[in-house]
Each structure stands twice: as structure tokens, then as C-alpha cells.
């Protein structure tokens, strides 16, 4: 799926850029994109490595187990296919907690580890399991307490009350998460 989308973006992108008469910019845009990815990589590598280290401490000290124990009822409902006490559940709960608090860089390593653990239970490699689908759907539509970026942009552009969107934002993202989880459940049942 991602591969198809990627091809479509490249093909349509080049095609319509040529039609729009910006042909000469195409080669430089690819180089810029690659350079931008490298820049992002440096930022990301540092942040992800730091948080992975911190997470490892939390894992070894048993803190993560304690958090996932607290979230067990929700996790059991969302991920019925993952056996109780499996490591994947620990990482999933960590990822959800980090996203909720807006710790994006801490969420990334725990999310990757969660998918890795779930892949160990995967009988058809290369194809996402039900649990992975549910996890990605929740992760992408994650409920975030405060979207600090947006508030700071609003402040910068002279909003009278930059934080007024916090509560509506939480409501909107809760709606989107609930709808996405519901849709995911439906698809699970249809597509065995």
C-alpha cells in the first residue's frame, strides 16, 4: 500500500510539476528532500536514542510493567490476540502514555519496539496482524492532552486566547480515535 502511494506521489508529482511549468525545479527538490531527511535524521537519532535509553531504565526497573498493569482492561479489549503478560503490551501502553503526554520522541522508540514484539506473534510475515492494525490506528489518531505546537503558533500570530482550542482539540481527537477504533473493529470482523 505504502509502495503504491509512494509511486503515485512521485509520478503525479513530476507530471503536474511539468504541466505547471516548474520543470527546472524538480531535480533540486529531490536533493533538498534528501538533505531534509538527513537533517531530520540527526535530530531524530539523538532524541530517539536518548528516550530509548530512558525507556530501557524504566523497563529494567519494572516501571513499564506497572504502567501496563494499570492499563490492562483497555489493552485486553483492544488487543485480544496478544497473550497476557506479553512484552508487546508493555511497549504499547508506554507508547500510548507517551503520546497522551505529548512526548513524541519518547513515543517513537516504544512504538517501534511494540511492533517488533507483535511481529514475533505474526504467522504471516510481511502482512500486518490485527493487533498491529489496531495499534497503528490508535497511534496515528492518538489522543493528546495539549498540542503545544499549535498553541505556540497561535500565540505568535497574535491570538487573544491561544489556549482556547485545547478542550475542543481534545474532544475532536477523542472523536477521531473512537471512530477509527470502531472502524478497525468492524474491518477485523469482515476481513479474517
Amino acid at each position, binding site marked *: *500500500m505504502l509502495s503504491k502511494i509512494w509511486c503515485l*506521489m*512521485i509520478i503525479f*508529482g513530476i507530471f*503536474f510539476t511539468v504541466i505547471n511549468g516548474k520543470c527546472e*525545479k*524538480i531535480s533540486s*527538490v529531490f536533493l*533538498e*528532500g*534528501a538533505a531534509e*531527511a538527513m537533517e*531530520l*535524521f540527526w535530530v*531524530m537519532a539523538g532524541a*530517539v*536514542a536518548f528516550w*530509548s*535509553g*530512558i*525507556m*530501557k*531504565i*524504566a*523497563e*529494567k526497573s*519494572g*516501571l513499564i510493567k506497572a504502567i501496563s498493569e494499570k492499563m490492562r482492561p483497555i489493552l485486553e479489549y483492544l488487543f485480544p490476540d496478544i497473550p497476557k503478560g506479553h512484552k508487546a503490551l508493555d511497549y504499547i501502553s508506554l507508547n500510548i502514555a507517551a503520546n497522551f503526554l*505529548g512526548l513524541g520522541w519518547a513515543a517513537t*522508540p516504544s512504538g517501534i519496539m511494540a*511492533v517488533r514484539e507483535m511481529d514475533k506473534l505474526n504467522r504471516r*510475515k510481511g*502482512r*500486518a496482524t490485527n493487533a498491529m492494525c489496531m495499534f*497503528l490506528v490508535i*497511534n*496515528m489518531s492518538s489522543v493528546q492532552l495539549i*498540542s*503545544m505546537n*499549535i498553541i505556540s*503558533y*497561535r*500565540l505568535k*500570530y497574535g491570538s*487573544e486566547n491561544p489556549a*482556547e*482550542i*485545547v478542550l475542543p*482539540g*481534545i474532544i*475532536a*481527537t477523542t*472523536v*477521531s480515535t*473512537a*471512530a*477509527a477504533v470502531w*472502524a*478497525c473493529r468492524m*474491518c477485523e470482523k469482515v476481513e479474517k
Partner: protein
Amino acid sequence: MKLISYFNGAIIPFAVLFIVCFGVYKKTDVFGEFVKGAEDGLKTCVSILPSLIGLICAVKIFRLSGLMEAAGLLWKPLEKITHFPSELVPLALSKTFSSSASAGILTDIFQNYGTDTYIGRLASIMMCCTETIFYTMSVYFSPVGIKDSRYIIKCTIFGMLCGIAASIVLAGAM
């Protein structure tokens, strides 16, 4: 406002402090584990890098092509019925690819329409519930080589549309 930014600024130091103290309390080899974890983290980042390069290049050329603006123009006739301004179509579309691209579009909207208008508020609320679908998928799935993502995109876009509908109602009520 002050309280929110204070709270937000306190989360990271508190989380790190708490985790490290808890580790010391449980007699974990704190620094040793940190190093092991950081090494794993670096390896993961390297495994993501190739797909990151591919994705960002694709997003760049797609933005340059002007297709997102064209989608906004196509939306124009539906503006009145849906209460969703066509100016926000590129914002919603770009957010599904990358949050840094959409941040630029968001600030443009604030500049042109103000932050405390219907458009400004709707854009702000919407940003909370639209998701960076393609970026997230490649980051999480490329390290384990998942190619068939099944119904994930469908479900997420459905959730996102519901979220946008809720944003329209909420922004209208403000």
C-alpha cells in the same frame, strides 16, 4: 495559558527524573541500561533512514506540483454545504504526509485569516485530530518489513473525517 505552558514544560523533566529515581530505588544498573537502550535506538533510526529519505522526497515533489491547491479549488462548490473552507483542504491533506509541511501551511492560514476567526479556530482544532498517516506507517513498519497494511489507511482516514466533522461543529460553537 501560563499554567498550561508550565505544565507542558514540566512533563519531560518530571518523566526523566521519575524514571531515573525509580531505577535507582530498584537498584537497576541505570547508566548501563541507558547505554544499551540508546544503542538500540540508534540502530532503529538507521533502519528507518532509507524510507525517510524516500518519503520526504515524494512529499516535496508532491507539494511542488500544486496538486494540493488544486484539490482545494475542486472543493470550492462544497464549501457552503459542509462549512469546511476550501483554504483548509491543503492543510488537511498535507498533515497526512508530514507535520512539518502542514505547520507551514497552518502559519500561512493564521497570517492571512487571523487566529481568532472561524477559519483560524477550525484550522487549530483540526490540527489536533488529523494524523500523519504515511510517515507513521513507514517509521513503524519498515523496521519489521510489513508490506501489507490491510485496512489501516481506510480506518484512519475515516476517523480523521469524523474528527474534522467534530471540529467544524466545535469551531462553529466558539
